């Protein structure tokens, strides 16, 4: 398919895992690991899907999500939030801010693959 | 001091202390007067050898003063709670 996914995440091992899984499935994966400059990265070339971690150095994933939704160019891009803090209030927060999907770490590879396929084609 | 049986005894003790302090204040005045006393000795006749009498008198006085001071230092209670109350007694009109 060759669709482009942008993964914003700071843990090198998790980046490696997700990139491996998605590349194998035929996606073009770009990665970025800093919260502060994440918006610039998105605007350089708007992806078809964004996978966004909540706890990022520099700027939290929620703040980035808020900006994504406020910007006309990115407002409709599907965003999948990843978090390691699996509390209910985190999910509420993500949904209120307009996340398309919310996933708690650790996840199974099948789940994330399903989710990416669903979101990118919708 | 609600216990009357003991009040009298306590009062006697602190009364005594106060009088000892009066004594401590009086001693130097007494001493000063006694030291000036030889100025009034009769000096009409020149054959009286006053220096030797002066030695006996002044050193005698000195010994008496030392004995009194020694006795007072024994009976005076230096640091008593009463101390502050007494100092507070003389408050009036110095501002």
């Amino acid at each position: 398919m060759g669709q482009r996914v942008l993964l914003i995440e700071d843990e090198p091992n998790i980046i490696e895992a997700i990139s491996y899984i998605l590349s194998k499935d035929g996606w073009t994966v770009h990665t970025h690991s800093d919260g502060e400059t994440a918006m610039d990265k998105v605007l350089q070339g708007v992806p078809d899907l964004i996978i966004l971690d909540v706890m990022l150095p520099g700027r939290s994933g929620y703040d980035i999500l808020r900006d994504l939704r406020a910007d006309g160019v990115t407002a409709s891009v599907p965003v999948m939030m990843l978090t390691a803090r699996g509390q209910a209030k985190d999910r509420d927060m993500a949904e209120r801010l307009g996340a398309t999907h919310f996933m708690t770490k650790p996840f199974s590879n099948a789940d994330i693959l399903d989710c990416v396929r669903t979101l990118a084609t919708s | 001091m609600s216990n009357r049986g003991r009040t009298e005894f306590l009062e006697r003790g602190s009364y005594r202390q106060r009088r000892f302090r009066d004594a401590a204040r009086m001693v130097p005045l007494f001493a000063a007067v006694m030291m000036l006393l030889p100025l009034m000795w009769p000096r009409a006749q020149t054959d009286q050898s006053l220096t030797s009498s002066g030695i006996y008198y002044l050193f005698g006085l000195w010994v008496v003063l030392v004995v009194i001071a020694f006795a007072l230092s024994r009976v005076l209670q230096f640091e008593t709670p009463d101390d502050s109350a007494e100092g507070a007694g003389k408050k009036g009109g110095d501002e």
Partner: protein
Amino acid sequence: MISFNLLVFVSIAYVVFLFAVAFAAERRAAMGKTAWLRSSAIYTLSLSIYCTAWTFYGAVGYAARSGLEFLTIYLGPTLVMIGWWWLVRKLVRIGRTQRLTSIADLISSRFGKSTFLGVLVTVLAIVGTTPYIALQLQSVTQSIAVFAASSGEVWEAGDLNGAAMWVAAGLAVFTVLFGTRNLDAHERHHGIVLAIAVEAVVKLFALIAVGVFVVWGVAGGIGPTMDLIDASAQSQWAPQPSRWIGLIFVSAAAFLCLPRMFQVLVVENSDERTVSTASWAFPTYLLLMSLFVVPIAVVGLDLMPAGANPDLFVVTLPLSEGREGLAILSFLGGFSSATSMVIVATLALATMVSNHIVVPSWLNARTPGAVVSGDVRDVVVMSRRISIGVILALGYIYFRLSGGGGALAAIGLVSFTGVTQVLPAMIGGVFWRGANRWGAGAAISIGFAVWAWTQFLPSFGVDAVISQAVFDQGPFGINWLRPYALFGIEGIDPFVHAVFWSMLLNTGALIVVSILTFPNPLERLQGAQFVNVYDYSSGARTWSQSAAQAEDLLVMAQRILGGAEAQSIFQAEARSQGKDGFLPDVTPDFISRLERELSGSVGAATAHAMMAQLTEGAMVSVDDLIAVADETAQIMEYSSQLEAKSAEQDRTARALREANEKLTALSIQKDAFLSQISHELRTPMTSIRSFSDILRDGEIEDEARKKFAGIIHDETNRLTRLLDDLLDLGVLESGQVQLNIGEGTLAEVLDRAIMASGVAPDDLVISRRAVNEGVPLTTDLERLAQVFINLISNAAKYCMADDPELRIIVRQINGQTVVDFCDNGAGVPKESQSMIFEKFSRLEDAGKAGGAGLGLSICRQIMTALGGDVTYLPGQGGAGFRVTIPAAVALAAQ
């Protein structure tokens, strides 16, 4: 014939002995054995510096010239000591509560911490004391010359001057050595006090020995001695009433006002009860010193050739009778009298010069606000040492200029009248609240001027300073200003004339000027504290509110008092407020207490000025004044109970408030921590799960499989470490930790910790002082190393300075070993300092920190288990942590 060399040998041996005594006393005091140094006997003997060479040699000369009049000099102090309940007791109490360092400090402190008055009294004291020091040098050299003459050598003026110079230099060394070792004047000079106590015994023993020899050995008993007296030229005793009264008054006043007497009477006094014993013991000492004076004088006049100097009879009489051993003993007595006076007088004056002249000028010369940037302690110590040298040099110069002439008694009396000019301000200051600084300044200035004109300047002789014409006609022909006949009243004895007019004008100025002018608020407060010292033992509220921060104050106090002492004061204060750590709330009480501590080192005026700079001039409010003025006796007594209660309530409330703040903050932090721990656990688990899925599901290359397995392995380890930390903390907290007690030195543990922390010198420079680190330890060395590793890697992680540096300082405080870790970074903000040791806490910037905020918490738990502690140490210019390791015996075995 005594060989002159033998005399020199005996003197040097005696001096060495005195050094040994002083060293031994300092050593014992350093070991905390000060009880016997504070005994009444030592105190009484130290008062005997009142009896200088003037007494030892001069009293006999005085008696030979004027009969019994010499006794007035000893009757005056006897009156003061017997009447201790009036004045001495009050002075000692004031001296202790206000931490006075000198008589200049008393006057300056009482009159609103006035710098001007401090300088004035210091100058007066130097002018008055210099001739007196010269007198001591003169008497020592004269007595040496007597021995030289008797052994056949003839001394030229040059030899005398040389001897005087050696004596002065030796005294300077002794005084610097034992007088400037402790900065705080209230730490007291044990070495010096004990040495002068020994000298007091020597001089009394020597004089009595000579007296006994003269009465029983020469005159043939008491009866014949009295007969000799009655037959002598001094048999008639016709005291001049004005001189008799005047001399008793001046000697009593000088006993209180002489800088050296104030030093031993008030400053060195450590226990008020010793005064009560001295009230009879010191008059006894004076009595014994005076007992044989007249017999020695009379026998000397009888036996010695006409024209012999009666000032030297105590040495020349035994010599002429062939009693050389006795003569040497007598020489040592005179030597003791002279040296002990010079040592204490010099020390007292040097303290005054440094506290009232040098340090204030030094502070003024600096830009405002920069007070704390230099090391005041060094300035104070150095200025004291230099002052000691300068004052002794002045004494020596005066000795050279005056040519060693003049009867001893005359010089002594000039000095006495001079220092007596401080008396009205002192008495007024402690008994009359209305006395103010204008009055005191006018009184001392006028008294000083009248004394200088009528007694001091004329004492140099006619035509020396004041010409014959001025004596006869007055300056510029103003008749009523003649030095010996002020206001045209002639025929009064010059001594009485000087005392009468100086005291009359002095006291008059104090009263009139004080009545006509207004004191400033600080003076009124100090006045109330001095006059009602028995009521105000708790100290007054001099400082209202202030902007000074505890940490700034700590930094300043450390500079002046030294680190350990300042920290212990702050810690004690914080504890009494119910707080942990080193930073108490800056209450007015605390500020005035701290100011008194500092004034013990640098004097009241200086301490006040420094505090004022830090507290931004927050002085005394009108409310404070009214409060003090209204505190009449009855209210005081009643309110002191209330105060005690409300202070207690304050303390409790403060403790509760702190606890509450802590709880609230903790609860917030606990939520955050749970999130955090969840994050820390889930992150490695995510990688593990993901890669194990990949490995399970499919065909992948060998290369990739190896790599993925490696990642799983690493992440598992990370999980294990985190769990270890959590469990470690759990065990430590429950108190069931197993300690492996071993033996080693602190240096080894530090070496191991630095190695294990893996900190590269590029990232963090660690400076240590190996000398202090050889401390043997009996404790769990592994656990201790764990604490050190944590602190070192914390510094490496959090210290953001350009050139990060960690200083590891080891010292001994109260028998415990203390290791301070201070870096040069930004430190921990004050509001976080109470939090950092809590389990769930971690400062901002989570990305930087590698752990979950458990490190310091584990450190504290370990140290508690080891019976020690780890605390945050503020005021170090960066983050500072203090690890306290208890002595091995106190080890808290579980």
